[in-house]
């Protein structure tokens, strides 16, 4: 080991036991490696050490064993050392070598110093420009390699230096930049704490280091290497010392490498540095050393003696005159013991300190304050005196002026004649413009320099100690000519008369200096140290009497890469003497440092850091170094630039901007919120953000507003139009059913098509929303899909007119009114036929279709429309019910779908508000014309459905709550009602589609039927559930859902029965209609209904409703069997026709009729055959009653029904309830009036129907239908 030499020297010293021990260890290891192989040994040890640091221990043990002659204390110490060493994880492979970069030509002294510094704490004293940074970088890089987790700190005393060194180190060894970071006081402590954790190589200022070590942010345990630049500052309480002291107190094992060009001007200061930094070895090189010589450029140092000017001498004498009496006084006291002419501020300071100490011990002097004052005055005077001699008159004068204005000096000296005289002299000389001899000499030198050197490439630095003189120099240079471009380079602090330069300005100055914008810098001491102010040809030291340390630094600015020249301007007299004295002193210190300063200084032991088993071999590597990327600032700039370029607007964009954001504001486009009220009546398509509840409320509001507005005028028109259409269709049907239907259908289909898109969208929206709301079943999602498919079906509708026509032809019966419905149904049927999958979907489609179909009808009657919608929905459900029988195992999905449908219907029906909404929707739709209204209606329904769904859910949840239960009841009732009509429609459709298959609803073959049937059960169940839930809450309100469920199950079973009956019921519907017509009781019954209705309203007696229902049910059942689907179709058709044909009132009535039909059909299944007409009438009454009645009434009815407990009954009741709700929304009086008129109309229509119906054939029915329409119109 090369490091053996120093150890030998240290050997005798007790303080270096550790070193000796280490050496011994080395020897032992050497022996062993001879015997075995070095590698295996090393590996073994490594393994052991990995275990718990025992590796080292083992070597020690062996060492102790072998070399017992060693002092007994060794093991102990070694153990300590061992432990601490093992704190750091070492990369064993990397530790076998150490890297020395050969990117730059190798210099022997650098190599040796680096090698030494790797294993000992080293103080490197190397003249400036000889590459101290390279040594530091090599050491850091190797520690970076050896200790994968170790952290390395490079401390430099100022921020510019930190920045400079991080770049320099990077360019030498290329430590990856992601591991390095520079931290100064500008970084916030939390940020620093984070960086301390994440980074490994830190370039910091000593203040940061000290603070972070103190606060614990710096993870001292991981520190392996500390490099201290400008180490001569490590004096007293400077941060360097504090930081190292803290580190040593931890204690932590780390390598300290101190770098300086000037370790100190005295032996003591150097020793202090060594003590403070725990240095074990001093590596000192001098320009004259043999291994450095080749790299040192010739640096000519010229000392130019300048005689003081005449004025200056005079003034100087005056000052001495002022000083003399004061100095004499002090001398008498004994405070000064030297000739006043040799005194200087520094000496005076020392003397004052001494005097103060004496005073402390002997406070007997009562003139202490006077003495203090004298000292102060003297110091100031000498200071001015010094300024005068070294910097000229002006700085001295300014200082004097300043001092005379304030403080003790002013008080004491302002009356002194001599000082005033001196001041006057100075003022005179200044006003004459006489420049100091130094300045003129300096200018001489400058001009001479630039004569021989190219002003473009040559650089000059002028150092001066005072800012005042810097300004003088600048002024002086300013008059020379443009050949010399000078600038000042001063510190940050702003003095009283001059403003400091910020670091940014400083950087800019240096940058311009490098680029050649300036070729002369006039600097204060800030330019002396470390800053790599490029290559300078000439350094002028304006004042000579400075510490040798600073003089060396000043001189170090030149002669770095090529020859340089230093000119020292010294004033004759005190300054020159001082300069010479200090020069001699620095020579003696260099003598001390010869031979590593071993004889002069006391060193401290330091850990080797790398275990002794490792004997790293040097490896010369040419490192590939990536370009250094300055951190943060530049990156941010780049970012800003790119973003700025991105932000550039194209011409088109600026045009757009101009259009919409015209500065004058005249052309400003102000978006209007009220421009499109119509588009606010349905939810707009959304992208990713769903509509909020506020939006839904808003849409509802808009619908109401617009619906009310539109209803008045447009309803009639629309109805009229519809009526015409109906008329047309009807006659056609009767005579040329096919053609007329086709036409109608085509038109309808087209309309539908046009509207379909919107509808589909709305449907989708609704469906999705429902799904979301329900969430309960995954199947709901399926339903949503189904709805989408239904949308598809709607789209297909236009294409399928033929089939529809056929169907219509066959079923021609009822389709006229509900052409659209029929079309839809037909399309649905077709779809169903096509895809089995669609069957499930069909139900939703059906609902959609129904809705669409209903829509045309609905426009006619506001209320009726809503009802129609409900009916449509209901239709789907009934179908399902019917099919339940067929397919008991119907897919839950379908059922769920149905449920959804029912929910929709329920939703619509449930809240009166909703009803009103429906009415509104209806109104709006008429305005738009039937087709559009249909779409809107759908949308509305959908919206309502959503709202309702939520409500329904809530109700279900809160069935316990009476109020909720009540609400839920109506909703349920609505649901049921809707379902019922749906059944009818379905039946009609089925009939139409399958014709002969009507009876064969059981047959699964018919997809459409199957679909219908499937959903129906679900709907039934739901209905049952709802009904049950409603009933129970209404009745008991306390009953549990379980019970309801049980009921539901029972209902389901019942429904199965009913399904069988459903077919019947369909038939029964037809029958009912026929019966009704045939019976020709309608008028009377209606009248009765009205009466009952009123009674019910007044009395609100549930009993009446209940019995009626029961009776109704019984008859229905009887009739159902008898009647066929055809009749049902006819009835439905008639109903629809009535609705369309009639005005709103008539429509309402028709809807009521339908509902009543539904009721009858439902009731039919229940049991008796009795007069259907009665039933219907009752139903109607019930509905009216319901409408008139409050929810309680409905509930009562329901209860009664429940008591009868037939699921069908419940449905019927529900339907009634729904009607009630609708009615509720309406004014009772109006309702009554309407009812009366409706009844009349109905009676008429029923009569007609009856007339026609007797045949009970489809065609007949159709024919009948047509008349009814006519009547309605």
């Amino acid at each position, binding site marked *: 080991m090369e490091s053996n030499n120093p150890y030998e020297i240290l050997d005798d010293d007790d303080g270096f036991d550790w070193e000796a021990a280490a050496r011994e260890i080395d020897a032992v290891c050497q022996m062993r490696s001879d015997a075995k192989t070095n590698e295996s040994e090393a590996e073994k040890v490594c393994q052991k050490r990995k275990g718990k640091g025992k590796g080292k221990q083992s070597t020690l043990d062996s060492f102790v064993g072998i070399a017992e002659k060693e002092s007994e204390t060794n093991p102990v110490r070694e153990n300590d050392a061992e432990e601490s060493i093992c704190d750091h994880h070492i990369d064993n492979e990397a530790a076998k070598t150490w890297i020395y970069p050969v990117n730059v030509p190798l210099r022997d002294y650098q190599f040796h110093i680096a090698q030494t510094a790797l294993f000992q704490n080293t103080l490197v004293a190397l003249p400036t420009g000889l590459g101290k940074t390279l040594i530091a970088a090599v050491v850091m890089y190797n520690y970076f390699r050896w200790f994968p987790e170790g952290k390395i700190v490079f401390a430099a005393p100022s921020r510019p230096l930190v920045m400079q060194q991080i770049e320099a180190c990077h360019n030498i060894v290329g430590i990856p930049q992601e591991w390095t970071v520079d931290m100064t006081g500008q970084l916030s402590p939390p940020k620093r704490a984070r960086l301390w954790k994440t980074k490994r190589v830190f370039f910091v200022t000593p203040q940061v280091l000290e603070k972070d070590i103190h606060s614990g942010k710096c993870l001292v345990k991981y520190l392996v290497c500390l490099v201290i630049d400008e180490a001569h500052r490590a004096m007293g309480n400077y941060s360097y010392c504090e930081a190292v002291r803290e580190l040593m107190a931890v204690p932590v094992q780390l390598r300290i490498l101190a770098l300086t060009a000037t370790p100190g001007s005295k032996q003591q200061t150097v020793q202090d540095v060594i003590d403070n930094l725990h240095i074990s070895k001093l590596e000192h090189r001098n320009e004259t050393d043999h291994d450095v010589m080749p790299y040192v450029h010739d640096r000519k140092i010229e000392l130019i003696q300048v005689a003081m000017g005449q004025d200056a001498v005079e003034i100087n004498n005056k000052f001495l005159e002022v000083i003399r009496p004061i100095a004499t006084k002090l001398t008498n006291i004994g405070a000064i013991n030297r000739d006043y002419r040799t005194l200087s501020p520094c000496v005076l300071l020392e003397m004052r300190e001494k005097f103060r100490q004496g005073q402390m011990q002997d406070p007997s002097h009562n003139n202490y304050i006077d003495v203090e004052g004298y000292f102060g005055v003297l110091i100031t005077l000498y200071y001015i005196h010094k300024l005068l001699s070294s910097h000229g008159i002006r700085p001295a004068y300014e200082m004097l002026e300043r001092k005379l204005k304030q403080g003790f000096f002013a008080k004491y000296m302002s009356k002194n004649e001599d000082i005033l005289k001196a001041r006057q002299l100075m003022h005179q000389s200044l006003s004459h413009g006489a420049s100091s001899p130094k300045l003129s000499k300096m200018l001489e030198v400058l001009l001479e320099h630039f004569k021989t050197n190219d002003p473009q490439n040559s650089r000059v630095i002028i150092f001066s100690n005072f800012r005042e003189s810097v300004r003088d120099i600048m002024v002086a240079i300013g008059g020379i000519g443009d050949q010399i471009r000078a600038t000042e380079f001063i510190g940050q602090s702003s003095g009283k008369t001059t403003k400091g330069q910020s670091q940014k300005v400083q950087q800019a100055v240096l940058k311009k200096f490098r680029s050649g914008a300036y070729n002369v810098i006039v600097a204060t001491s800030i330019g002396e140290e470390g800053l790599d102010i490029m290559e300078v040809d000439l350094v002028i030291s304006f004042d000579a009497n400075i510490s040798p340390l600073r003089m060396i630094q000043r001189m170090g600015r030149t002669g770095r890469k090529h020859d340089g020249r230093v000119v020292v301007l010294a004033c004759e007299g005190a300054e020159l003497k001082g300069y010479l004295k200090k020069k001699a002193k620095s020579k003696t210190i260099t003598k001390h440092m010869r031979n590593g300063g071993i004889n002069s200084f006391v060193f401290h032991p330091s850990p080797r850091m790398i275990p002794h088993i490792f004997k790293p071999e040097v490896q010369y590597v040419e490192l590939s170094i990536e370009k250094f990327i300055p951190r943060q600032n530049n990156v941010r700039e780049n970012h800003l630039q790119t973003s700025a370029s991105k932000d550039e607007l194209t011409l088109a964009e600026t045009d757009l901007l101009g259009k919409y954001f015209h500065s004058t504001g005249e052309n400003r486009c102000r*978006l209007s919120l009220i421009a499109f009220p119509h588009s*606010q009546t349905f939810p*707009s398509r959304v*992208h*990713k953000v769903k*509509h909020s509840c506020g*939006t839904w409320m808003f849409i509802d509001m808009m619908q109401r507003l617009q619906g009310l507005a539109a209803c008045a005028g447009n309803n009639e028109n629309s109805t009229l139009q519809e009526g015409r259409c109906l008329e047309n269709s009807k006659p056609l049907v009767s005579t040329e059913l096919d053609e007329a239907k086709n036409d109608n259908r085509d038109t309808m289909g087209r309309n539908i098509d046009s509207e379909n898109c919107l509808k589909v969208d709305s449907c989708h929206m609704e469906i999705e929303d429902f799904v979301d709301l329900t969430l309960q079943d995954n199947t709901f999602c399926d339903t949503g899909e189904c709805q989408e498919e239904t949308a598809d079906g709607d789209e297909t509708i236009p294409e399928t007119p033929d089939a529809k026509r056929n169907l219509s032809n066959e079923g021609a019966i009822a389709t006229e009114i509900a052409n659209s419905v029929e079309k839809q149904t037909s399309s649905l049927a077709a779809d169903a036929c096509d895809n089995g999958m669609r069957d499930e979907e069909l139900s939703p489609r059906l609902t959609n279709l129904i809705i669409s179909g209903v829509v045309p009808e609905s426009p006619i009657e506001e209320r009726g429309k809503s009802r129609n919608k409900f009916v449509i929905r209901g239709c789907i459900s009934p179908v399902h019910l019917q099919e339940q029988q067929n397919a008991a195992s119907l897919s839950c999905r379908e059922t769920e779908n149905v449920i959804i449908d029912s929910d929709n219907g329920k939703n619509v029906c449930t809240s009166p508000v909703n009803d009103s909404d429906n009415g509104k929707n209806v109104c709006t739709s008429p305005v738009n014309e039937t087709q559009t209204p249909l779409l809107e209606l759908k949308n509305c329904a959908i919206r309502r459905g959503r709202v309702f769904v939520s409500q329904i859910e809530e109700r279900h949840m809160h069935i316990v709550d009476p109020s909720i239960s009540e609400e839920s009841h109506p909703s349920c009732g609505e649901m049921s009602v809707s379902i019922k009509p749906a059944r009818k429609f379905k039946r009609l459709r089925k009939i139409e589609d399958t014709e002969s298959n009507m009876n064969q609803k059981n047959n699964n073959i018919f997809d459409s039927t199957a679909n219908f049937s499937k959903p129906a059960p679900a709907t039934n169940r739901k209905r049952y559930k709802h009904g049950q839930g409603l009933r129970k809450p209404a009745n008991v309100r306390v009953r549990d859902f379980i019970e309801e469920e049980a009921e539901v199950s029972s209902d389901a079973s019942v429904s199965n029965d009913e399904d069988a009956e459903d077919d019947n019921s369909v038939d029964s519907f037809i029958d009912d209609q026929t019966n009704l017509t045939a019976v020709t009781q309608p008028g009377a019954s209606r009248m009765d209904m009205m009466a009952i209705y009123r009674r019910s309203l007044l009395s609100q007696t549930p009993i009446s409703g209940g019995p009626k229902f029961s009776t109704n049910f019984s008859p229905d059942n009887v009739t159902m069997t008898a009647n066929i689907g055809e009749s049902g179709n006819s009835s439905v058709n008639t109903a629809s026709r009535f609705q369309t044909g009639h005005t709103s009132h008539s429509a309402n009535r028709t809807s009521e009729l339908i509902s009543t039909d539904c009721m009858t059909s439902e009731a039919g299944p229940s049991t008796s055959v009795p007069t259907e007409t009665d039933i219907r009438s009752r139903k109607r009454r019930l509905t009216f009653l319901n409408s008139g009645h409050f929810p309680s009434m409905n509930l009562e009815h329901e209860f009664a029904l429940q008591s009868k407990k037939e699921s069908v009954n419940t449905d019927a009741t529900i339907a009634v309830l729904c009607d009630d709700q609708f009615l509720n929304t309406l004014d009772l009086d109006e309702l009554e009036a309407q009812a009366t008129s409706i009844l009349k109309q109905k009676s008429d229509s029923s009569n007609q129907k009856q007339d026609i119906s007797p045949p009970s054939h489809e065609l007949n029915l159709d024919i009948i239908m047509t008349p009814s329409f006519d009547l309605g119109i």
Partner: protein
Amino acid sequence: MEEPTFEPDLIHSIMKRIWTLRTLERENVATNDAALDSEVGAGSSKKNRTTSGIYVIIILLTNFLFANASALKLTCELLRIFVTEAVQRAVAIAETEGDGQIEATHLESILPQLLLDF
């Protein structure tokens, strides 16, 4: 790569402009201090409601004079969503009307609901 969004700096400068305008306005209308105070009161009472979306930004602009980095980031994201949603909805309308270009009318037709949705 995350979607392009607004530059926080841009948003911040816009907000700062609004703030300065507001303060200027407030100074000019110093006489109406009472009214302003009542407004502030109303604003704070509104704040008690669950606020979301654009309303937050409005609060930010009216009740505060600063926004920290995360608030800015959130604001940017919110604005991005808002703008994309507005554009997409307007596109939907434009497409249904067969226009290949979004016009102000398209925006107007979706604006009320859009504003309610945020």
